[in-house]
């Protein structure tokens, strides 16, 4: 390694750490505040306690908001996962020219400005008297979750060898059994990852809900938003911590799952390689 290369690597390392600090420190502050000993926000902390957690979990409005978020996100994730998976499968199997357009439209919620989506949903919902209907919110969120499932499953299908489906057919499986026994089992990781993204998107969403929540579907981000405008206290930090833990936690679980799978596969591959010898 030349001197220049070394300098380059060090520069990069410092930069990465700076970014990490810029991102991680603010988040850590929020989490730290949730353990604050006093009932107002203070940094550095004035003592450590679980008071704020006690307050959060005994206040039915916070608990209701949390449960409401979970309910809306679960339904949204279910819809997004089903439709996203089927759409990815259908798009991978068709040679139709309109394929790209359908893909693009299903994908577009990711690039649509959230604030515009929020306003347009408000316009439609208020006309159809759906403001405050949690099912309507779930459906709106599911549209935003579809792209994640679509991308994950499409990419898995690209690595999926269609000869496996052909093999199943020649061995006596009809198209439905082939889908069920051969195709779907190969896609579980991707579907799981897509579902997690769809869930977290719905669970965390904080713009659309300001417009369409009404009083009937107050979610955790919405409640957090409302509270932040009136008073700043450690209960807010708890709400923030709950949001972080659920989002990051689910994501880590999904990662862990596929990491374990990968490791098992790598180990198996290593065993197979030993049988044949790798290229010299």
């Amino acid at each position, binding site marked *: 390694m030349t001197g220049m290369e070394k300098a380059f690597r060090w520069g990069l390392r410092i930069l990465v750490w700076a970014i990490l600090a810029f991102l991680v420190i603010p988040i850590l502050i929020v989490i730290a505040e949730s353990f604050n000993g006093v009932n107002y926000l203070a940094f550095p902390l004035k003592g450590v306690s679980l008071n704020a957690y006690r307050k959060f979990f005994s206040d039915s409005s916070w608990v209701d908001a949390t449960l409401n978020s979970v309910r809306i996100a679960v339904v949204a994730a279910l819809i997004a996962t089903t439709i996203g998976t089927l759409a990815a499968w259908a798009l991978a199997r068709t040679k139709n020219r309109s394929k790209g357009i359908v893909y693009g439209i299903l994908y577009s919620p990711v690039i649509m400005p959230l604030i515009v989506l929020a306003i347009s949903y408000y316009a439609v919902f208020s006309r159809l008297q759906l403001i405050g209907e949690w099912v309507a919110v779930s459906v709106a969120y599911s549209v935003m979750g579809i792209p994640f499932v679509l991308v994950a499953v499409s990419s898995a299908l690209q690595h999926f060898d269609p000869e496996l489906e*052909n093999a199943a057919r020649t*061995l006596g499986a009809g198209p439905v059994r082939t889908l069920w026994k051969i195709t779907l089992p190969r896609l579980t990781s991707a579907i799981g990852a897509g579902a997690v993204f769809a869930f977290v998107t719905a669970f965390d969403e904080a713009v659309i809900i300001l417009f369409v929540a009404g009083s009937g579907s107050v979610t955790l981000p919405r409640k957090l938003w409302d509270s932040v405008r009136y008073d700043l206290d450690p209960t807010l930090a708890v709400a923030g911590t709950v949001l972080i833990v659920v989002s990051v936690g689910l994501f880590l679980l999904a990662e862990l799952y596929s990491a374990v799978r990968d490791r098992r596969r790598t180990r*198996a591959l290593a065993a197979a390689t030993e049988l044949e010898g790798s290229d010299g």
Partner: protein
Amino acid sequence: MAEQVVFKGINKSFGDAAAVVDLNLGIEKGEFFTLLGPSGSGKTTTLRMLAGLESATSGEIEIDNELITHTVPEKRNIGLVFQHYALFPHMTVADNVAFPLKMRRTSKTDITTKVNDVLSMTQLSDYRKRYPRELSGGQQQRVALARAFVFSPSILLMDEPLGALDRNLRDHMRLELKSLQQRIDATVLYVTHDQDEALAMSDRIGIMNNGRLLQVAPPNEMYERPANSFVAKFLGDSVCLPATRSRPNGSCALEVEQLSGRVRIDPSTNLCDDDTGVMVVRPEKFVLHNSEPGVSDDNCVSGVVEASVYLGSDHQVYLRDDSGARIQVSSPAAAGAIDVGSRQWLTWRPTDTLFLPVAD
């Protein structure tokens, strides 16, 4: 013998490209039939049409006198060994092999018996709980084979099944495959671009190029009497030179521009209707002499050695005839090394000289 599989006037195009053109072919019951051809010749497409994975653009396919042109693959009861095996990666060896039986709702005890039988037949009993990725290439190949015949299909298709194996294993598997076919008494349609595999295993070979079936014959007949220059070149090494037929003094002779002197051929090896064609001689038919041989009925040319390639058991000698032809000759290593630049004489018999129509 009865023809078990019949292709009747099959055509297949992908968009504008014709993959198979007017194919008519019957395969007999219990026969080991090989489709041999370069990549893009339509051989794999033919196999996949029989399996039901491609549909013919026109024409009909019959199995046991029943029309199956539009039958879905799962109803055809044909075993197919895929080129890259297509083993189900999320199933163990035993589950892979049991799959076709489960799809046929075979009883559990029957499945266990049959899977055990087939696994021991393919020497895979010790690997039944392994996943495909934990197996070597040769073992995967055997799982693919076991899975394709465990449900006793009367027809077994194989699409370059040995292509992914290394040379020694490939030679070994040739014998294995052939003896397996005889044991289970199946009709086999085998697709390959490897001439040695085709020669070694087949009862009959069909050679394809550009979507057309050029010749169907048993291996030795196809080697000794290729229908045209493409077949001669593709199946075995050969020296091919453009030639014109002349009939001086009533006997049969060829004018070969690139060879000095006329070439005698036997009427029986004159396989071309036209007067222009290609003279073909197999390299092992030549005899090499380092001094001018005596006069005989054999053809004789002389030339200078351009290159001599040592291959262990023999030398490949490249001789440049005075009129320009480059002739490849095999010379046994025992005959000693042949000096590059030296003059050598070649003789070969008129009966070993083929006169064939041109084809690409």
